[in-house]
């Protein structure tokens, strides 16, 4: 019996001890109060020191350090893009092809690699958890949402910035894309299935909120709550640069659309419309009060006479859009032949992976902004940033991969090979042109108009007849985030 007691006690105490030891083990990195905190200063400075050295190094020296560090080991990345999985193997190939002799490698360089793509804005928790945890497995990240990166990641010291020497010399804009370092700009565009649609059915950005006759229209879109770059687009629309664009769209809208927009702004409870079902209704009866006037006060937008139109567009869009879990399903939904007249706001490059069949086609898909006479913004653009975790177990490799992805066409190829993603390095971007991707093999006829990407300059030009994408500015987003976030939450 005594032996039995001891055995039980030992095993249970061992279990409890294990749990508690685990707690003790990690307590050095945590205050235990759940608050954001700077990580262990020794670890931060060690990684930062590597970054400082790497920024002064030539590619060959950097790659040597990285190969020495990672050879035979495994490298882990957390990314907002599934295509990250192709970048690391491309670097390994590149080393074996171009540096094997120079680095004195006697056999092929090999390294394991894993990447994950957290959904629903969980990437920030994943990074925080890894940095503040007892074991650090994640080395670097490809991450989006400039606003949250700044407030939740950089200011807390979780992420560190590295700018490759070659990137600086490439002609890239350090002011625009260096802090944090941007891999690329990518676009989400308004697109629609043109089967059965009348000419000009989608010639105005307001057409993605209501039809010409005022009937509500549901654009398929990811919830801004699950992907905050969508929320950032809504924030950015209140910037005078873009309110002006929305005002132009308002001016070119149909009379019915204009009347509805006016009624939304004024919260008009008298004028009735026939487009909300069987019986005539007022806009307020159909949608509820917009609160736009109060929101202009709350968000400090009084000085801009066009702000109300931008808010009216947001109001209509948020009231009518169809939530879809990801851009992939939106693309799948839109490209069905049966989805005649359906529209979405989605990552442009998603259209790369559709296989033609009896019921699915890409041929009838159209980018709204490419249509003649399109009025308003064509979608929005945000950036993918590359950052090193402050506890990166392989900092040299992190820097080398970042250098490879930002300074070599091979490194950017996972994104550059398709339309919709544009490297921040002009020398790299010059090697990718998708303006004729939609042509057939002999280059005479256009099979897939949607694949003919008009390019970064066209998309970002803010003038009539061009893409006029809403460009994300993290600082501006942060400045209006509170007031806008409240209002968006009020609307949905």
């Amino acid at each position, binding site marked *: 019996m*005594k032996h039995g007691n001891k055995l039980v006690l030992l095993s249970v105490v061992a279990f409890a001890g294990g749990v508690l030891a685990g707690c003790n083990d990690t307590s050095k990195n945590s205050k235990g109060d759940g608050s954001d905190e700077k990580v262990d200063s020794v670890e931060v400075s060690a990684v930062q020191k590597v970054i400082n050295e790497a920024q002064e190094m030539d590619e060959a020296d950097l790659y040597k350090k990285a190969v020495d560090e990672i050879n035979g080991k495994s490298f882990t990345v957390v990314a907002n893009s599934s295509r990250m999985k192709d970048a690391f193997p*491309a670097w390994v190939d590149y080393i074996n092809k171009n540096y094997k002799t120079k680095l004195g490698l006697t056999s092929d360089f090999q390294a394991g690699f894993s990447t994950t793509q957290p959904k629903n804005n969980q990437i920030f928790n994943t990074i925080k958890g890894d940095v503040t945890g007892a074991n650090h497995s994640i080395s670097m990240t490809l991450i989006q949402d400039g606003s949250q990166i700044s407030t939740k990641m950089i200011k807390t010291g979780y992420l560190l910035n590295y700018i490759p020497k070659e990137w600086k010399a490439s002609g890239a804009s350090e002011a625009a894309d260096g802090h944090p370092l941007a891999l690329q700009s990518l676009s989400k565009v308004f697109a629609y299935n043109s089967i059965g649609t009348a000419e000009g059915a989608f010639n105005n950005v307001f057409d993605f909120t209501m039809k010409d006759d005022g009937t509500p229209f549901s654009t398929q879109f990811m919830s801004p*709550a699950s992907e905050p770059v969508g929320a950032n687009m809504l924030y950015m629309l209140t910037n005078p640069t873009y309110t002006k664009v929305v005002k132009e769209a308002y001016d070119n809208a149909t009379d019915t659309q204009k009347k509805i927009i006016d009624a939304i702004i004024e919260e008009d409870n008298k004028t009735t419309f026939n487009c909300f079902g069987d019986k005539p209704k007022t806009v307020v009866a159909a949608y509820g009060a917009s609160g736009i006037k109060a929101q202009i006060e709350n968000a400090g937008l009084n000085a801009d006479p066009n702000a109300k139109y931008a808010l009216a567009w947001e109001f209509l869009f948020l009231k009518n859009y169809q939530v879809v879990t*990801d851009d*992939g399903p939106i693309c799948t939904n839109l490209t069905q032949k049966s989805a005649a007249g359906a529209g979405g706001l989605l990552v442009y490059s998603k259209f*790369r992976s559709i296989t033609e*069949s009896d*019921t699915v086609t890409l041929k009838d898909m159209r980018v709204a902004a490419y249509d003649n006479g399109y009025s308003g913004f064509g979608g929005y653009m945000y950036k993918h940033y590359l950052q090193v975790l402050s506890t990166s177990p392989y900092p040299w490799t992190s820097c080398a991969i970042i250098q490879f992805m930002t300074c070599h066409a091979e490194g950017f190829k996972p994104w550059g090979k398709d339309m919709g993603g544009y490297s921040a390095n002009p020398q790299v971007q010059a090697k990718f042109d998708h303006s004729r991707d939609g042509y057939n093999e002999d280059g005479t006829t256009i099979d897939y108009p949607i694949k003919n990407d008009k390019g970064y300059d066209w998309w970002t030009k803010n003038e009539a007849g061009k893409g006029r994408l809403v460009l994300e500015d993290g600082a501006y987003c942060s400045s209006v985030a509170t007031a806008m976030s409240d209002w968006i939450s*009020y609307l949905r």
Partner: protein
Amino acid sequence: MGNASNLTVTPTPKTSSFKKKWRSFVTYISKPQNAILIILGIILTALVFIPMVDVFLDTFKLHKGAAREDRGMTLESDQWSTYSWSLLFTQNKFQAAIVRKNFWVPLGNTLALAALSCVFAILFGGIVAYLVTRTNLKFKKYISSVFIFPYIMPQWTLAMVWKNLFDSIEVTGTKQGIFAAFFHINMPAWWCGGLFPCAMVLGMHYAPFAYILIGGVFRNMDANLEEAATILNTPKWKIFFRVTLPMVMPAVVSTILLVFSSAMGSYPVPHYIGSTKSTDFPVLATKYMELQSDSPAMASIISVVMMVIGVTILLINMKMTSGRKQYTTVTGKSGQASKVNLGKVGAWVCTIILLITTFFTSIFPMISFALETFYENPGDYSAWTLKWWNNNAVGEENGMYGQLGIWHNTAFWRAFGGSLFTATFAALLAGTVGTLVGYCAAKNRKSKFANYVSGVAFLPYLLPSLSVGAAYFVFGNNIGWFNTYRLLILVGMIKYIPFASRASFNSMIQLSGEIEEAAIIQNIPWYKRMLRIIIPIQKSSILSGYLLPFITGMRELTLFMMLASSDKLATLQLDYFDEMGLYAFSSAINLILVVTILLVNGLVNRLTGASLDKGIGGK
């Protein structure tokens, strides 16, 4: 004086009192069941309550960088504040409208969803249990086996099947499901999204609970009472409502309590079929995920509120359990359960209805998943391919967004290995700790402390998975275990201990104390008594305490989704591919998971006789 001096000087009474207490403590602790109880009581109290306290404290913070808490983005670090709680009762009309949308409406929807799920689960599971155990239904073994399939499958996969069947461009605004594409039938909006489909899916998923619990009572029910009523010429309907139904009421109540809390914490089902073009159905679980970024304290409040509801359910459960004395006719000893003759036609009609129903709830999803893995594009019924299984072209699109086929997809197989690892160790720990808790509680039935430990061990089951996950998310971050298998195993263990503790307790109280006493007299050590006498006698029940955590752990999402990245578990990969719209992958993963669980269930059944549906219609 002398006497007084003697009285004041002598320390004997104190010493003897201390010694007495010490001796009685040593005597108490020398019994293994007491020692284990104390240690497990301390550990479980810490592991259950510390995360709950953590998440509660989190509700009193303003989080740096959270747009709706760090107003103006000026915080240098997190600050203590009652701001988020005060919002719940704010008089500000604008803020009140936001809180209504973010909290009060989802709370109402959550309660409605949980209640309706209970109704569906009990109706579906109870009727099938009755037909299988108390009638001359055909194909009982087959129906009993396939009926538990929905519980084995991750719960939202039925939601995906629902979408595949009933979505339509006209109504849901997404794509044509089978009804719309092949039969040109557009189901109404209330059928496609919102409360009804969510409750139906959850009801079907949890119907096996009702089936197992109610079926167990039906099977062991003493038929003497019904027969007595029959002899007294009582009409059949009256016998059913006045005799049979009261006897199964405890099982019905148990089912309600279990299903209510489980359905309340479901995230993926409302996430996938809650909202359509014309319906919006926010629940607390989906709101929790939405608010995590901008209002993490409000998200934690949601978690705390769900916990409070869970604790309330526990209290109701305790009250109901104490009131079970009135149903002591359910002895479990009678072998005289009478069979109701449905008649030849009736038996076949009921059988065919059940065969069709279980086909759609259990077999059709498998067929649907299998077919989905061969479609060229997701949901595209016109072109077929093997690429989703065997594509091995690295870096090429192939209409798969650059993913390799399942056979070559190392990320999936790593995650699958992670699932096996997590489920196995969580099951081993939960099974062992739960068995010990059940054993100790059964040995100390009159002890308040034993009841406390038993209650604490059972509490996590009544807390919604999302709440437990949220609590361990905060806790895991605080102790630096985020995104590690040990956190997943720990939370799995805590959540699934009730499976084992209840199974163990129920089986241990059936054991006569004389069996162990005989061994004690023979001076057989405790561990030998456990390993050679007690466990072998009750191995079936005890093994079910290991099997259920394993199965649940293999197909769990809500509990784990905040705690690890998608490369850690197969269900997280499954959810990732569902979110991405790569349904071929998610379907393949689903199939692999279900086959794995069935194999393990079959293996355990073959080796030990334990099985999920054992004892009802299975065998």
